[in-house]
């Protein structure tokens, strides 16, 4: 068996007396898609905030691709290839859809100032490659038609997709998606599932997917972790989890 | 670069001066009887040159008097205070001066506004104040027996200029700009009243705020006011900028201004544009010229009139201490008794309001970057 890309051990987070996360554990393997579900306030977003360096753990250890990232800064973690999206969308709203994606893909350009100034062959090759990557993402996400609109004025569902492909443009190894289908209707959520499935296959991504749309979770995830009040209550395949009595009581019973 | 170097030099000199000064101060304090005079004014900020000239004038007079044996053996000592040309700060400083019993008289506060703020405090502390620049005539009409003034009031110059414009030059359509302070408003009012008495018309009456650097809106009005002449109740900086900006905007007219513009800075800041500007001031006799020459020699620059007024105020206070005794009230009584005292401004007498009496005026015009005598 290959080694886990992301391992989390005994992760705790306390906010002034509230234990938001208690003893969270995870092994995320390359190419694996893990769902993270649970009622409101269960601690899901806090886990993502901890993994992405936005919060410091009170206790525990997070390792990504062989690096201990328990205390690392967000940009360092992103550089290592662990990239997140936000439950509350954060786009560069004055930039167009295309520019949002280009800006995220640009730091990987292998060119120097001299290349830019002299328009060297390398410059042209790199820029061409960069355009193609962006084109491919826009095409696959169905955003090509609106690539020149300012991101800030788009409908909610489109903004979600822009945020995801912008994250993909940084070529992460693992992506943490915090409720990517929130606010979408059934058919939009299905289209998003199609796209995520494509992206996961295309880039060999690992995904952690927080989602309230259970059909999205059931379709994409090999494994699902259920949290309640900061702790993992169950984990297993989607079928196992959805039939578990404690889950039905703590989560599905409430949601249904 | 030159400026930088001379500043550094000044700094070194100042440091040396402080060291030496401490020493002398220690000796004098141990040995002698002093008459300490406070010189108050803007020692920092935009108007700091005025405060500096207050101190220089007073210091020059004190040195002269002390060299001639002082006041009955007592040495005149000048101590400077910074009121920052701000009415709130003035109140604080005046209180500090008033409650320092080693100080027997005070002179200064640059503007009429600051003098008004300070006057009641001097009265409450029983300390004589000699005004040496503020020119609102009403200052000495308040019945405050502790306040004297050796400098002239602004009604005199404003009225002389109004007579010149309307009666001698036949310029009857006149625009006015005035600084919106006690000084500007009152001098402007005397000017306007006299113009109207003489049968002239005020075609524009435009106030502006202190520290204005942009006169655009007023200049646009001036361009369309059809004025034959403009009169400014202004200080040199505002007047220079206003005229400069107006000329750059294509305004062609004849410019006249209050005596407060008399300063090297006026042609310096105004440049070409202020050539031909005319102002009226009290006539300056031989004594005035002698002090001015001493100043030029010492500081290598043209003195403002305030140097001379500070000089004369120091002479008056010294004489008052001689006649009335070296106490606060003695000096007040001595000042009241002064009659035709020979000072830097010529023979000094106070009227019943403790205002120095002036009778003669002369006109100046800016030519080749300098104020020169002018006759209509």
């Amino acid at each position, binding site marked *: 068996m290959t080694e886990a890309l992301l391992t989390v051990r005994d992760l705790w987070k306390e906010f002034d007396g509230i234990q938001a996360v208690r003893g969270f554990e995870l092994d995320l393997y390359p190419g694996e898609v893990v769902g993270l579900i649970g009622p409101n306030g269960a601690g899901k977003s806090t886990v993502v905030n901890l993994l992405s360096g936005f919060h410091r753990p009170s206790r525990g250890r997070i390792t990504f691709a062989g690096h201990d990232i328990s205390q690392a800064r967000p940009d360092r973690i992103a550089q290592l290839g662990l990239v997140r999206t936000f439950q509350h969308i954060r786009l560069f*709203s*004055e930039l167009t859809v295309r520019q949002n994606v280009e800006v995220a893909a*640009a730091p990987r350009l292998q060119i120097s100032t001299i290349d830019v100034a002299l328009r060297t062959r390398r410059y042209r090759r790199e820029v061409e490659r960069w355009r193609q990557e962006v084109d491919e993402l826009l095409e696959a996400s169905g955003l090509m038609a609106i690539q020149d609109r300012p991101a800030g004025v788009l409908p909610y569902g489109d903004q979600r997709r822009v945020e995801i492909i912008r994250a993909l443009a940084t070529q992460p190894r693992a992506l943490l998606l915090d409720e990517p289908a929130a606010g979408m209707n059934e058919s939009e959520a299905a289209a998003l599932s199609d796209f995520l499935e494509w992206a996961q296959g295309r880039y060999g991504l690992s995904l952690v997917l927080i989602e309230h749309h259970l059909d999205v979770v059931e379709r994409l995830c090999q494994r699902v972790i259920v949290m309640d009040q900061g702790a993992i209550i169950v984990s297993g395949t989607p079928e196992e989890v959805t039939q578990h009595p404690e889950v039905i009581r703590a989560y599905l019973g409430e949601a249904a | 670069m030159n400026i930088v170097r001379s500043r550094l030099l000044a700094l070194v000199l100042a440091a040396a001066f402080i060291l030496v000064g401490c020493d002398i101060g220690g000796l004098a304090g141990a040995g002698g009887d002093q008459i300490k005079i406070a010189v108050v004014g803007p020692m920092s900020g935009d108007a700091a040159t005025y405060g500096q000239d207050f101190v220089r004038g007073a210091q020059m007079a004190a040195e002269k008097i002390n060299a001639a044996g002082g006041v009955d053996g007592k040495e005149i000592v000048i101590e400077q205070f910074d009121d920052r040309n701000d009415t709130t700060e003035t109140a604080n400083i005046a209180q500090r001066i008033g409650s320092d019993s080693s100080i027997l008289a005070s002179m200064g506060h640059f503007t009429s506004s600051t003098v008004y703020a300070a006057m009641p405090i001097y009265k409450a502390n029983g300390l004589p104040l000699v005004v040496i620049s503020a020119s609102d005539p009403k200052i000495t009409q308040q019945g405050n027996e502790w306040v004297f003034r050796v400098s002239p009031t602004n009604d005199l110059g404003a009225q002389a200029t109004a007579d010149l414009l309307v009666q001698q030059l036949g310029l009857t359509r006149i625009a006015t700009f005035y600084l919106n302070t006690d000084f500007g408003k009152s001098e402007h009012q005397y000017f306007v009243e006299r113009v109207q008495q003489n049968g002239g018309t005020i075609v524009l009456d435009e106030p502006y705020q202190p520290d204005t650097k942009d006169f655009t809106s007023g200049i646009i009005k001036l361009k369309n006011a059809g004025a034959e002449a403009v009169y400014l109740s202004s200080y040199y900086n505002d007047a220079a*900028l206003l005229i400069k900006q107006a000329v750059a*905007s294509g305004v062609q007219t004849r410019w006249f201004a209050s005596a407060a513009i008399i300063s090297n800075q006026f042609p310096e800041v105004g440049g070409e544009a202020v050539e031909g500007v005319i102002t009226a001031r009290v006539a300056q006799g031989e004594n005035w010229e002698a002090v001015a020459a001493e100043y030029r020699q010492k500081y290598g620059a043209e003195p403002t009139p305030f140097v001379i007024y500070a000089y004369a105020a120091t002479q008056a206070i010294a004489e008052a201490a001689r006649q009335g005794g070296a106490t606060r009230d003695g000096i007040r009584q001595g000042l009241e008794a002064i009659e035709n005292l020979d000072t830097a401004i010529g023979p000094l007498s106070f009227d019943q309001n403790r205002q120095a009496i002036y009778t003669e005026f002369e006109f100046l015009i800016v030519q080749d970057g300098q104020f020169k005598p002018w006759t209509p």
Partner: protein
Amino acid sequence: MDSVTIPVLVDQLVSGLAIGGVYGLVALGFALIFGVLRVAQFAHGEVYMLVAFLVLTALPALPLGGFSQFGLVLVLALFLGAAIGLAVERVVFRPLMAAPHIAAIISAIGLSIALQYLAAFLWGAELHPFVLNWAPGNLTLGPATIPAFKVVIFVTALALLAGLQLVLRRTQLGRAIRATASDPETARLMGINTIRIIAAAFAVGSAFAGAAGVLVAALYGVVYSSMGIAALVKGYTATVIGGVGNLVGAVISGLLLGVFEVLLESYVSPKWSDAIIFALLIGVLVLRPQGLLGRAIPERL
């Protein structure tokens, strides 16, 4: 009240647009720096003042005639502004990047005061005349005669602003600056080198402050050590009204502010114009913190 005629109104509008263009330059620089740094550069006005003084000192060495002197002065001001901006970023702001924002704000205020004292010490606290060899005279615009230099200032300001817009919209660096201005944290997550972006914003924003400084010096004919305060107040007001983070909004509100100010001084009272503008600023901060033209404010100034 004086009657309003067309020539007077044209004159007022042109004057308002000229000074408004200058406010726009200052506001844009301030907004640009605030956008990427999320800290108010309260010494921005002193960059403008220092450049004006440095150019004044250099003027005797530029004995060119007419327009070429103006052009050279402008280029020099842009470069000096950029250099000072880079130095300020490197020396004052970068070391405080990890510190709480309040530390950077206090340092900026301290820097502003220190630079004013420095200028007063080096050059003197009095007014210094600033005169270019170039006097373009007057322009006749229909029934109105207006100083051509005001048109030049307006056009120069617009050209600089348009040039920057082009850079911000068309180049990768420009897009990265806009991305950072829009959300610095996310920009960093996307791999953008925000340290470089902040330095670039300081260089560009301060270059514009420098240009504004010499334009104002030439317009009013004077340079003095406290001139930066007025510029900062107007630039800050324009930035807030335009909506913080909204660069185009900063420019538009700078222009409007210039016109509004001239009209207030002309038809209300010069005494009240500053107070009214200040009340407007407070009103916007309280009632519409995202600005009259703007979107949500990212953080309080």
